[in-house]
Structure formats: structure tokens, C-alpha cells
């Protein structure tokens, strides 16, 4: 917590201090409501006008054994009066609901940061369950400002008199902590109260509101907290903002794409972490003419989407790694049949089932090369939660303009992280209305637009355009089944050329920082925040470092080679073992250096910064 000034608040006897940025991490059992607590704090923080970034981190198990390390769920929120890009490497304040949460998280807290613990949850048994042989608090008190609060007891007192079972009653203790945080950082409680009123009734509503207010009042009266903090609103671009996660933005982008292209949306999907939320969200929008189908498996979801595309819908399928693997054969057919649709892969840590709720961006080569034979497909990767909205629209637009399936690679970090999002002006969003082909005169299923090489979208129900498509090799123009060797060669070349032509219409890459210098950091997807922050810091320290972030992974933007060639060294941080780096080295014959991380966690700013320093011969 960096201090800028001190003052006294008018509303309270206590001192307030002004801070530029704060990172808090809420941690507890996966049943303790940590994700909810974090989300509510984030919403109030967004309304307070801060820039923010969040990092939810939770186990795949719905209710892992209580009190164990496996069951610890966390939610980190970083908020500031300045522009920030990451959830912060180290929280300033940790809230730990039990010893396991403390043990799993305390070493991430910045030196002499604050650690608030629910002391009621600390006993011999729970300490042992967390793997603590001795009471850790004496040692931790040396390193951190440890604040011990009897959260369970205070919660019970607050709800006394309400007829709730002990179990029901204890469930609201996360709102005690939330109320306390609202006091500590001078956040408004009203948005949370409004949300509670819309969600609960009777005693449960009453209990939650009472507890929230009790937590707030506790902060005001206790001597444990002599100071509360103000993080002023950030100076950000004027406009109307909302808080949004990547998955919500993606879902809204799917709906928006249908509106902007004047086509009914069809989404076929099969539940899979962390993509299911997109299916849930899109399914709410039937009134947009959206049809969603939960298919019997990943293959059927993909197949139904291709069928809907054939019939003229704007088709999507959403999945994560293992599901994306299953869709590859059908994706090959969509490439062969040249039908427009978007395949969304929200990457997660693997291989196999891996760590479904953890982060990786290791499906790039799968998207590019994961099918039999040569089967080129455009690939787009958003780089922030809000960007998922625009990426979905762009992917759909490219699909329809070029009559090709498009892969959108999001990841678990973007999916669940939140940021304040400048709500776009609907009038200013791109509109792409591609008409169905209707003229039978001279129609051939594989005739092509001379610019884009797109074939016509001729949908069933159109008189005079009856034709057959399918996976067998097809004759150029006529689309008749063909085993002619030269024809097959040409059709391969046409499909490749069609995708390659997208590269010439992409906006040129913009380098952040000087356009030439010692080091260029190249990234893609959800690593943007960490890379931007690390390179900005390095420049401030006098280093010649820039960064460029690729949104289009296939084809690459036309000026990529020139950009890469303007720097002495190239560093490619990826949450995989160097997939983009491999492509850059192969395509441009450059000695790009890979920086790999495979822990299921996002890059820390400090990690990238250290690599930059090492490459430029700086001592740390």
C-alpha cells in the first residue's frame, strides 16, 4: 500500500489515509463464499471509480473436504487510482477464514502486509488439518500485521434472534468480513444490499444485511483498525463503465454479433469448465432470437453448430481444451465445406483433465495444427476480459466474410477475471450484413469472391440453389466430388490462400514503447497485463524495452516481421512451453527466446521483469 497523503474523515473519528493502489485476497474453504465475497467487493470498488483487476482461484471440486489445503478458494482484487493491468503479484491484505487458507496464501502477502484471520477457526484440529504442526501465528506476527477477529462469534451475535439454524447462520460470516472491508477501504455497501434484496427474502436477507452492517460497524468501533483507507477514483477515459468478466463479455459478444450481422445466433455447447458460464449466459437471451442447445457431447455440439451454419444461422460452439480436441474432426469438415462459424476454446491447464480451474494458454498449436491434413483456420485471441466482447464480434465477422470457421482462444484467466469495461457505443460497433446468396443464375457452390475467395452462403430453402457439400474432396467451382490430383492440390492452395488473405486486412500491430530498441516482449492472450506492466516498469528504469501483443495468431498481421526485425532481442512469455515462440522462430528465422510458465497461475509482473533484466544484462 503506497501512501500519498494523510487526512481525517468527516464521517468517522478515525484517521483516513489515501492510497494509490491496494490488493486484497479473500481466502477460505470452497464453501465459504469467497468467490461471492470477492465479486461483491469488486462491484462496489468498480462503482467507486477505481481501475481494477481480479484473479479468482478456486478448486475444481465443488466442496472439497472442509479445512484442507485442497479445498482453499481465493479471490484477489487489485484496485487503484491509477491505470493498472494485473491483479498484482502480492496482496497487501489477506483475509483468511481458516488455517488452510492462511497456509496456502500467506507467503504471497507482501512483507509487513496485513493478515486478517478468523481466530474462531483456529484450533488444534484445524491447524493439524492444514498441516501446521505448531501455531504459526507467533512467527507470522513477526512478518505481518496479523489481525485476529472472532468472525464466527461476531457473526452469530449479529444474527441473534433470527430463527436460523446454526449452519445457515454461520454461512453469512463472509459478509461480516465484507462489511469490514467496506469500512476499511471506504467502499459503498448499497450495491451489495441491493443485490441481497433481489436475491434473498425473510430471515436470510435480514441476516446477511445485519451481518454486513455489523462488519462495517465493527471496523468503525474496534481499536484493531486505527486507520481506514481511501483509494480515489482513477483518472480513466470518460464514459459509462461496468464491471465485466471475460466469460460474460464473450457471451454478450456472441449475442452482439448476431445483432450486428442481423443473423439469428445458434450456440451448441457441452458443459465444461471454465466455458460453461458462456452457455449459461447466452441461454438467457432467447429474446434476441438466440437459440442455444446443450448437446449430448462436444462432437454433437460442434456438429449441430455446423448444421445451423449450413442453414444460415450465425453459429458458435464454446468449450475448453479437452472438448476442443473432440471437435477437431468436425472442424476439419467445416473447413472443407467452407462454412462460417466460431469455435471458442477457453483454454485451461492440462494435459488431459489437468487442472480444470487453473490457467494455461497451451492450445495454440492444437488450434493451428490439431487436425488431419492441411486445414488452415484463422485464430483470434482476446487479451483482456472486456476484449472478449470485441473478439467474439470480430471472429464472427471474419467467419462470415471469408466463409470459414474461426477459432477464438480465450483462457481461464480472462474467463473469470474482471475489469472495469468502457461500455461500447452500440452505434459504433462494426456492422457486417452479408446477404445469403439467392440468384440461381450461374450459381456454383464453390464459385468465389475474387477478393476474399469466400464461396457463396447458399442456404437450404433457397429455390434453384440446391447443392451438396461434404467432407469428400470437391471439384473447384462446381463442388462435385473429385479425386483429380491437380484439383486437390489447387483446393488446398485456395483454402490456405483464403485464410492468408485475412492478414492483409488486419490493422498493423502497434508497438507499445519505442518502435525499435534492445528488446521486444511479444505475447498473446491473457498475459497482456503482466507484460505491459513489466515493460513499463523496465522503461521507467531506463531500459530499452517495448512490447507487442498479438491478437491474430493466424494469419499474423502483415507488419509483424518488420516489427520483430526492429529489435535486437525478442522475448516471448507464454503460459505454455513456447508455442508462439516456436512459430515466430520457424516463420521468421529469428532467435526469439521463450519464457515458459506451467504452474496453472498467471505470470507475475516481477517474473517477466526479472527475465527482461536478465536478457539486458541488468543485475537485480
Amino acid at each position, binding site marked *: 500500500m503506497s501512501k500519498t497523503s494523510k487526512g481525517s474523515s468527516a464521517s468517522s473519528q478515525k484517521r483516513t489515509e489515501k492510497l494509490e493502489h491496494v490488493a486484497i485476497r479473500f481466502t477460505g474453504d470452497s464453501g465459504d463464499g469467497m468467490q461471492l465475497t470477492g465479486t461483491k467487493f469488486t462491484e462496489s470498488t468498480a462503482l467507486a471509480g477505481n481501475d481494477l483487476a481480479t484473479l479468482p482461484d478456486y478448486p475444481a471440486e465443488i466442496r472439497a473436504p472442509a479445512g484442507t489445503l485442497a479445498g482453499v478458494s481465493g479471490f484477489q482484487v487489485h484496485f487503484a487510482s491509477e491505470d493498472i493491468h494485473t491483479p498484482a503479484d502480492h496482496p497487501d491484505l489477506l483475509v483468511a477464514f481458516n488455517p488452510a487458507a492462511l497456509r496456502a496464501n500467506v507467503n504471497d502477502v507482501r512483507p509487513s502486509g496485513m493478515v486478517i484471520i478468523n481466530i474462531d477457526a483456529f484450533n488444534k484440529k484445524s491447524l493439524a488439518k492444514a498441516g501446521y504442526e505448531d501455531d504459526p501465528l507467533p512467527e507470522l506476527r513477526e512478518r505481518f500485521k496479523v489481525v485476529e477477529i472472532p468472525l464466527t462469534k461476531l457473526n452469530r451475535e449479529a444474527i441473534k434472534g433470527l430463527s436460523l439454524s446454526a449452519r445457515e447462520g454461520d454461512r453469512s460470516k463472509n459478509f461480516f468480513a465484507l462489511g469490514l472491508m467496506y469500512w476499511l477501504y471506504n467502499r459503498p455497501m448499497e450495491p451489495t444490499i441491493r443485490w441481497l434484496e433481489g436475491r434473498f427474502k425473510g430471515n436470510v436477507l435480514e441476516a446477511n444485511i445485519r451481518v454486513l452492517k455489523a462488519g462495517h460497524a465493527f471496523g468503525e468501533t474496534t481499536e484493531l483498525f486505527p486507520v481506514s483507507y481511501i483509494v480515489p477514483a482513477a483518472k480513466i477515459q470518460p464514459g459509462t463503465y461496468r464491471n465485466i468478466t471475460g466469460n460474460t463479455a464473450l457471451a454478450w459478444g456472441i449475442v452482439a454479433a448476431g445483432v450486428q450481422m442481423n443473423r439469428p445466433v445458434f450456440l451448441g455447447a457441452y458443459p465444461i469448465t471454465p466455458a460453461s458460464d458462456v452457455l449459461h449466459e447466452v441461454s438467457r437471451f432467447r*429474446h434476441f*432470437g438466440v437459440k442455444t442447445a446443450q*448437446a449430448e457431447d462436444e462432437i454433437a455440439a460442434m*456438429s449441430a453448430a455446423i448444421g445451423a451454419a449450413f442453414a444460415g444461422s450465425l453459429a458458435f460452439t464454446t468449450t475448453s481444451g479437452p472438448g476442443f480436441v473432440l471437435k477437431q474432426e468436425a472442424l476439419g469438415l467445416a473447413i472443407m465445406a467452407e462454412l462460417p462459424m466460431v469455435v471458442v476454446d477457453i483454454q485451461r491447464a492440462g494435459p488431459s483433465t489437468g487442472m480444470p480451474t487453473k490457467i494455461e494458454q497451451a492450445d495454440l498449436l492444437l488450434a493451428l495444427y490439431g487436425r488431419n491434413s492441411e486445414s488452415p483456420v484463422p485464430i483470434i485471441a482476446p487479451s483482456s476480459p472486456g476484449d472478449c466482447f470485441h473478439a467474439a464480434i470480430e471472429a464472427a465477422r471474419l467467419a462470415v466474410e471469408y466463409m470459414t470457421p474461426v477459432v477464438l482462444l480465450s483462457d481461464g484467466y480472462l474467463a473469470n477475471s474482471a475489469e472495469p469495461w468502457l461500455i461500447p457505443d452500440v452505434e459504433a460497433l462494426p456492422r457486417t450484413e452479408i446477404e445469403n446468396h439467392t440468384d440461381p443464375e450461374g450459381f456454383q457452390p464453390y464459385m468465389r469472391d475474387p477478393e476474399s475467395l469466400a464461396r457463396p452462403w447458399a442456404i437450404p430453402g433457397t*429455390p434453384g440453389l440446391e447443392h451438396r457439400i461434404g467432407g469428400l474432396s470437391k471439384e473447384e467451382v462446381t463442388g462435385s466430388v473429385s479425386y483429380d490430383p491437380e484439383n486437390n492440390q489447387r483446393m488446398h492452395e485456395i483454402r490456405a490462400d483464403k485464410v492468408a488473405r485475412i492478414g492483409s486486412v488486419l490493422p498493423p500491430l502497434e508497438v507499445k514503447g519505442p518502435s525499435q530498441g534492445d528488446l521486444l516482449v511479444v505475447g498473446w492472450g491473457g498475459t497482456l497485463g503482466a507484460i505491459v506492466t513489466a515493460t513499463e516498469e523496465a522503461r521507467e528504469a531506463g531500459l530499452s524495452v517495448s512490447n507487442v501483443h498479438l491478437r491474430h495468431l493466424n494469419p499474423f498481421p502483415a507488419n509483424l516481421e518488420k516489427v520483430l526485425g526492429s529489435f535486437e532481442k525478442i522475448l516471448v512469455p507464454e503460459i505454455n512451453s513456447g508455442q508462439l515462440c516456436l512459430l515466430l522462430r520457424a516463420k521468421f528465422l529469428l532467435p526469439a527466446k521463450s519464457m515458459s510458465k506451467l504452474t496453472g497461475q498467471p505470470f507475475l509482473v516481477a517474473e517477466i521483469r526479472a527475465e527482461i533484466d536478465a536478457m539486458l544484462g541488468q543485475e537485480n
Partner: protein
Amino acid sequence: MSDAAKLTRKDFTSDQELRWCPGCGDYSILANVQRVMPELGVPRENFVFVSGIGCSSRFPYYMNTYGFHTIHGRAPAFATGIKAARPDLSVWVITGDGDGLSIGGNHLMHTIRRNVDLQLLLFNNRVYGLTKGQYSPTSLIGMKSKSTPDGSIDHPVDPIAFALGAGATFVARTIDVDAAHLQQTLRRAHEHKGMAFIEILQNCPVYNDDEWIEVEDRKQRVEAALVLDDGQPLVWGPADQRRGIRIEDGIPSIVALDAGEDPVSKGIAVHYERHETPAYAFALASLQRPAFPLPIGVFRAVEKPTYEAMLQQQVDDAISKMGKGDLAELLHSGDTWTVTQ
């Protein structure tokens, strides 16, 4: 829109050269489908033929309609997407015993249970043809094939029982070479609102010749087939040697009838397609050669809401309840805040 009334068989014949083996049952099925299409009162452009992989799955290329030759086993899923997007289209799925019941068994089950309003024609020749003669999921125990030189040890699946088990609303069995019965079954399937499942007994002259000869051959059929006719007793055999099927506690048995004897008075079951429970149809499906005659005809035809109609209804209801979706309103829904200079 083209005029559906003036269409002929020729209008449904594509310019593609047929590439099935000489004597394949698929020729007869194709010819009969092409004959029935003009009678259905559907404009040609509204027909879509969807197939998977296998000999039968070449079918769409030979139909001058919209067609989609997809991937192995998944045709019902593609067809579901087409029908969900465009409920007005007449969608026909062509599959085989390998495509539909082996690799595609999952999709077949779910498309049936959803009652998507489409016609699915499963050509059953009890063998893999396109991959050159391996046993299929409907091959009988002991079948010697390239992959089972010592005989198949897999218990076969019966397509009719499978469809009934998945909750099919229309289930029929017909024969490749019986033009009249095949055509009548296609018409009935088209009339049916919901998923129409038709098993077509089809001969593979190369890898499993004469598998169905008992019912394909008109002379043998008198003994080997039980023709189902709604409202008529389950009776078969030559006039002087009639027999009937009695069903007690769900168990069928054969009862001999004297000349001129009333089958109903002897407890012979009367065929009825619209039983709410599928138990009766299951009993019929259990009739297998050689112990019983093989039932041919419509086993079951009941009404249930269709998938695509319910999906469309949800869209229509949402629009009438909430108004047509407004994108700006959506983006500004919930908590927002405005930053000024």
C-alpha cells in the same frame, strides 16, 4: 418458391454418377425415395438430406436437393442443428447400421429422445461395406468377417428396440426391394410430426449377400414376415396355414389358426400403433427369426412435442414477454457508473 405440385422423380435426380456396387439394395431405396419426394407437397428447395460416413451416406450426392455428407456417425447432430435453425425444412438423415448404431449410437439415441422432427433412414445390412467387410453392431453372433475370422462374439443390437428404448415416437421397419411398402413407410414418416425412425432391411451383395432373403423374396416372405397393419390382428402365413401372435404378460407366443377362424377370439393381439407405453412395441421388436416371423411395418406412432418447435416457442415467448432484445440496454444493464472529465 418452386411449385411443389409439378415436381417429378426426375427433379430429384442429381447429375452424379451412382457409385454403389451392382445389386446393392441402396439403388432400390434411392429410386423409391426419389419417387416419393414429389408427392409430399414440399418445395424441392426445402428438402435437406444429411448423412454420415459409409456406403449409404453417399445418398445425398444423388439427390438433387440440398445435401450434406458429414462425418462418421454424427449426421443426427448436424440435422438437429439444421432443424433447430430452420424448423420449416424437411430434413432426412441417411445412415447405416455401423454409422448410426456404432460410432453414432450416442447421437442417434439423443436425437430420438429429443423428438427432432426429421426422418431417419437406417439402412441395415448387418455389415461394414465401405471399409470392406467387417462385422457391424447388428451382425449376429458367430458372423465370420474379415475382423472376426473365428466368428463375432458381440451380442447384436436390434435397431427397433434401440429406437423404442430411446423413446422414439415413430418406429418402422421396411425392406429395400419392396417398393410399395417402402414408399408407404416414407409417406407415413413424413406425415409424422417428430422423429421418424425407419429401419430399412438392405442387401449387401458383396459382403453379406442374402442376409434378408427370407423377407425380400416374395415367396419366402409369406412364412418369414409379419406385416403390421393398424387395427388388424397379428396374423401371417399361407391361407391354409395361418398363425397369429398372442402377447401375454409382455411375452409373445405363436398360436395356430384353423381356416376361417377368428383370430381375435383366439386371443391374437390386434396391432395398435398408438399405445402410450412402448411395452407392446417392445414385445413386437422381440420377434426375431427363426423362432418368429419378422415384423414389417409401423411399430409405433405417437405424438409428442418436437424439439425445434419447443425451442422456437421459447424464443417467441421470450420476445413477447421481454420485447425484442436491445443490445444497448443489455450492455447497460445492472450496475454501471459514468466517468466525466
